[in-house]
């Protein structure tokens, strides 16, 4: 696996026959793509939006918005922001997990973090409904995201304590714990689907497909703050993360506190992933694919990898979600289908390139 990474790291964008300046200034290019993507997404949709509507939104008058302006301000723009933020969060958590495990296939899914969140949500859906506890509507709106987030964090704590108890500071122990937790979560979800009534089953399955339909400004702001804090926390970690790429012993030799670093990275992954899963359900492939694309562009240096992965993740999810809501107007297709459609072929191409060798 480590040879896989080193192969990847040696193969930067210039090997792929693209101009050299791409490799030196990818952030500019990606930002440009993202901005034009946001613009395109804002103009595309079931309800036609004119520049009058844009003016109405920008004027910020006291009158309630209607028609296209309403759709633009209350539905489309928050959803675009949501896609960008969730995409960035998923890609960042993927990049961190891959760096931590020095394993290109590691992502929060592998750790069991995603399944932990899903598992908590499944339990909430099934147990609460069958217990017959009446929950006020305002609370119900927050309940599922809250439990999903709690599930992600709980899995991370279990991961850390079990792995530490098993094998002192080894990544392998953590990885195996993640696999075990995944199996456990899958079993619990399976049990929930068995116990669920038909109606709950549909809630459950829709939630496991993932959707950005629940976007609103309030949640988007919470996400934005979370992401900013995560990036701020990450700034202090990139150096240590790079050292960790050499292996744990080597990192310890150059003065990195491996245990503390691991704890912090795990918590970061939990927060990012938990929030993403909590609000949008399980959206696959972004966390796995975005960091890979960036590694092909600029190599494995975390200082560049993390921010660029966020950009790529944002672009990918924005593309997928815009496709999801515009391909079958007036119906909507689950976004998970499009992330897989984008992700799977890319992966196969990657594998084909790997076969050829360097």
């Amino acid at each position, binding site marked *: 696996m480590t040879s896989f990474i080193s192969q990847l790291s040696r193969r930067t964008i210039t090997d792929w026959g693209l101009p050299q300046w791409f490799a030196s200034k990818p952030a500019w290019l990606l930002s440009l793509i993202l901005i034009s993507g946001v613009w395109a997404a804002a103009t595309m949709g*079931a309800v036609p939006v004119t520049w009058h509507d844009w003016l109405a939104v920008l004027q910020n008058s006291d009158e309630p918005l209607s028609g296209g302006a309403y759709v633009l301000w209350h539905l489309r723009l928050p959803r675009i922001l949501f896609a960008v933020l969730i995409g960035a969060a998923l890609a960042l958590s993927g990049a961190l997990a891959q760096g931590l495990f020095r394993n290109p296939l590691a992502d929060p899914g592998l750790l069991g973090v995603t399944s932990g969140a899903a598992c908590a949500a499944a339990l909430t859906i099934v147990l609460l409904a069958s217990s017959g506890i009446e929950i006020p509507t305002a609370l119900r709106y927050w309940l599922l995201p809250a439990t999903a987030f709690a599930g992600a964090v709980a899995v991370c704590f279990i991961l850390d304590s079990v792995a530490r108890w098993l094998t002192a500071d080894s990544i392998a122990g953590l990885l195996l714990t993640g696999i075990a937790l995944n199996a456990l979560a899958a079993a619990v979800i399976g049990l929930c689907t068995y116990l669920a009534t038909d109606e709950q089953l549909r809630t459950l399955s829709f939630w496991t497909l993932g959707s950005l*339909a629940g976007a609103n400004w309030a949640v988007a702001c919470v996400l934005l703050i979370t992401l900013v804090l995560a990036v701020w926390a990450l700034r202090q970690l990139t150096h240590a993360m790079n050292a960790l790429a050499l292996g744990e012993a080597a990192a310890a030799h150059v003065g990195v506190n491996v245990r503390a670093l691991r704890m912090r990275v795990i918590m970061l992954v939990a927060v990012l992933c938990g929030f993403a899963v909590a609000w949008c359900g399980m959206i696959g492939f972004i966390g796995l694919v975005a960091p890979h694309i960036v590694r092909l562009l600029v190599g494995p240096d975390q200082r560049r990898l993390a921010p660029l992965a966020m950009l790529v993740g944002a672009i990918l999810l924005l593309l997928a979600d815009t496709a999801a809501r515009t391909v079958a107007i007036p119906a909507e297709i*689950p976004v998970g289908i499009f992330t897989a459609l984008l992700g799977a072929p890319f992966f196969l191409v990657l594998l084909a390139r790997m076969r050829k060798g360097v």
Partner: protein
Amino acid sequence: MFDLFNEQNEGMPQSRRHFLNQIGAAFAIACLPQLALGAESSKKMTRRIVSVGGGLTEIIYALGAEKELVGVDTTSLYPEAATKLPSVGYARALSSEGILALSPTLVLATEDAGPPAVLRQVGTAGVPVSILSANDKFEGVIERIQHVGRLIERSAQASQLESQLRQDWQRALAPILARKTSAPRVLFILSHSPAQIMVGGRKTSADAMIAYAGARNAVDGFDGFKPLTPEAVIAAQPDIVLFTEQGMGVVGGVDGALKLPGLAQTPAGQKRRMVALEAMFMLGFGPRLPQALSALDQLLTKAMQG
């Protein structure tokens, strides 16, 4: 049964509408019902309805309001004309923008429509959303017809339809109630895909239909739909296996159904008693319920005789 939002007609001041309603009510009390109808149809309000749920769409057609229908969901397969309308997609994966794009003045949906966030968004955008209760009883159909009739101001048509349905229902039930033969044990199988074969337990629409048809559900150990297990099927010993037409297609007709684990070891399997009805017709609990019951009754009777 509850309305999330009071019905409001846009573009018409509340007072004027109130006044019109009072006039309408006064007419209805004072004059012949036809005159009230006349007052209703002379209103120049164009209502635009999005219907989420095949049963509701059928009710709208049965009340003669199909001209006001601007969008349906994927389960609205009957009448044929409904499939030509813009589809807002699967009832549980609705898109708020997609619904708003049809500029509806009313959204009718069954309880299982969703996601809830999307319906909330449509509501806050100023479009009244009415959630109609789903229950698998004949009275439930009547309730929904009355409710829809009130919402789209066709109560008179709704009453007519109701009395018609009550007659049809009695006619459909009469032979079933008069029958003296023992009730056959019926197993209902639902299959969306070959990998997903589900059996209908208690508290399902299929269970209600089987009971109305004077038969017994062969599985009564659980509620809802559960994956098919061979031993449970053998233990249930069904006399007849009932499929939806769509599901029968999925498993590959009667021959394919016989290959399902455990089915060959039951009376139904040994005597090839496998029958199927179109899913929305049999389980939609809409205005076609009496016909569906008669059709099911005939199918089961024929299967037992054959």
